[in-house]
């Protein structure tokens, strides 16, 4: 058995690992330090590639043996042919891109399926903070203040579902997390994170 089985998995990583079948070809947009790709490579024998902009994070990817290209995900997908990958992952990176619509459509072009993980800016804790305190919410999943957040796009799970409907992207699966646990009811109210498996023909 691989030693990766001993690692305590992040709940969102666990869900994404569940969604992807062994030996798939995977592209992770905004792959950070390459942890997820490393897990996919070692636990699922996937062929993995990442795109990341931060130099230090890239050093980490290289250390993990993850193939990575330095680049901006707003433009970095032009390099790939249609449906090159079985899965394209956008986990916790969509809210940081300038043109999310183009990035999702591009991801749908190069990937047969797309996995998008987004923080839910309209979960109950955030709503209460806005309503009672009159302040922009700060939560465990959104720990930043307005002046230092890397997030430039704020959306709820509901907003994302609407977007998919509008663009004719079908949501094959939707998995939601409250803190560490998966939840199934009133997700737009209670979930902190939503992970969507998308398909666009």
């Amino acid at each position, binding site marked *: 058995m691989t030693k990766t089985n001993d690692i305590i998995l992040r709940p969102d990583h666990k869900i994404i690992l569940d969604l992807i079948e062994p030996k798939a070809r995977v592209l992770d947009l905004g792959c950070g330090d390459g942890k997820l790709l490393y897990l996919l490579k070692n636990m699922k024998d996937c062929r993995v590639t990442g795109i990341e902009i931060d130099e230090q994070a890239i050093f980490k990817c290289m250390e993990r043996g993850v193939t990575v290209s330095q*680049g901006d995900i707003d433009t970095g997908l032009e390099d790939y042919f249609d449906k090159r990958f079985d899965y394209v992952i956008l986990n916790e990176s969509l809210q940081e891109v300038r043109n999310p619509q183009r990035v999702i459509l591009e991801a749908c072009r190069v990937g047969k399926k797309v996995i998008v993980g987004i923080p839910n800016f309209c979960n109950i804790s955030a709503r209460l903070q806005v309503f009672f305190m009159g302040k922009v919410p700060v939560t465990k999943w959104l720990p930043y203040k307005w002046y230092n957040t890397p997030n430039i796009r704020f959306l709820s799970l509901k907003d994302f579902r609407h977007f998919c409907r509008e663009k004719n992207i079908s949501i094959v699966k939707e998995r939601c997390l409250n803190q560490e646990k998966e939840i199934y009811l009133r997700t737009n109210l209670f979930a902190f994170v939503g992970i969507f498996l998308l398909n666009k023909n």
Partner: protein
Amino acid sequence: MTREGACVNIQQLLELRVRELEELRTIFLTPFIFNSITLNSPTLMQYIQTQTFTFANPPHEFALKSGVKLGPITLAYETYGRLNGDKSNAILVFHALTGDAHAAGWREGDKNPGWWDGMIGDGKAFDTSKYFVICANVIGSCKGSTGPASIDPKTNKPYGLSFPVVTIEDMTVTQKYLIEHLGIKKLFACTGGSMGGLMALKWAVLYPESVHAVLLIATNYRHTAQQIALHEVARQAIMSDPNWHGGDYYGKGLPARGMAVSRMIGHITYMSEKSMEAKFGRKLIAKEKLGYDFSHDFEVENYLKYRGDSFVQRFDANSYLYLSKALDYFDLSEEGDLAAVLKGIRSKILIVTFTSDWLYPSYQSKQMVRALKANDIDVSFVEIDTDYGHDSFLVEIESQSKLVTHFLDNIAKEISL
């Protein structure tokens, strides 16, 4: 050893070794100086010997890309580390334009270690406790391999301009002979910065089954108009020197002014505006105020003059013409689409560029990355943020080492080396 008469002169002068690198180190790598001093103690180290390999003896001359036949051909080379039993741990390092086979370690009498000593050695990025590292001087050069300063066996005089024009492909193919001579069928890796990178790329294209990993640093797949233009100025500087005599200056006065000017141009292109500003600014040389004449006022002027003058002592002017021409001829996409040319590559590739390198800017490597990705070739690409310009591949040891060490380690694991 049959060192040619004309080159002996140069060779003797060469014993002074690459003073340029010393200066680079002094300026950029102060911590390494301590390292060098401790290593320099002869009791702690073994001297490196430069070896030679001669092939293509008449009538079996080597056919150059131009169609001209050349032979015999001698290649000077050095090796570091040990070749393992199944000869699977060899890494071939290609040097840059004015480099040589002395990539690492110390030769007897050296004042400085080899030009990539920060990267090659025990426990370093190209770890000689695991890998067998080879570096050979290219043909057309003047550092022990056959070039225009070598004696033409037909005339018993230096070739001069009768030496055939060589290409990057010729330089690469001749090194394949050396690798076969060493009994190596497949390299674990090949690498190079600048011109060396062009050769590593050429190797990956020519011999896809003969290398597992290719590392391309501060390089390009074709020389652009700007790169050709800068070289042409350097060539014109040499050829306009009255001492150049159509390349027939051996045993007479050297075209020193032309060489110095060409090297000054070269050095400007190897630095960045920021690194020059940081190093020299507008500092004056031993003067309180401007001289209002045409003597040197600024440190940067003095520095370029020093670099130019020391180059005359260590490099052959004709070799500079030949090698710069070979670079300018290089265009991997000349036979069509770049992606189609790279299609056959079977190795994993790491491409490294530097943000301030305006001689081989990153966008050129990004075009290569795109063409490799189009072919589904496993390629990693990193642009290191640094102010040292094109010289970064020689001085950015720490960040390059991180990348190279892990890249090689992971591939070694995959192939169970």
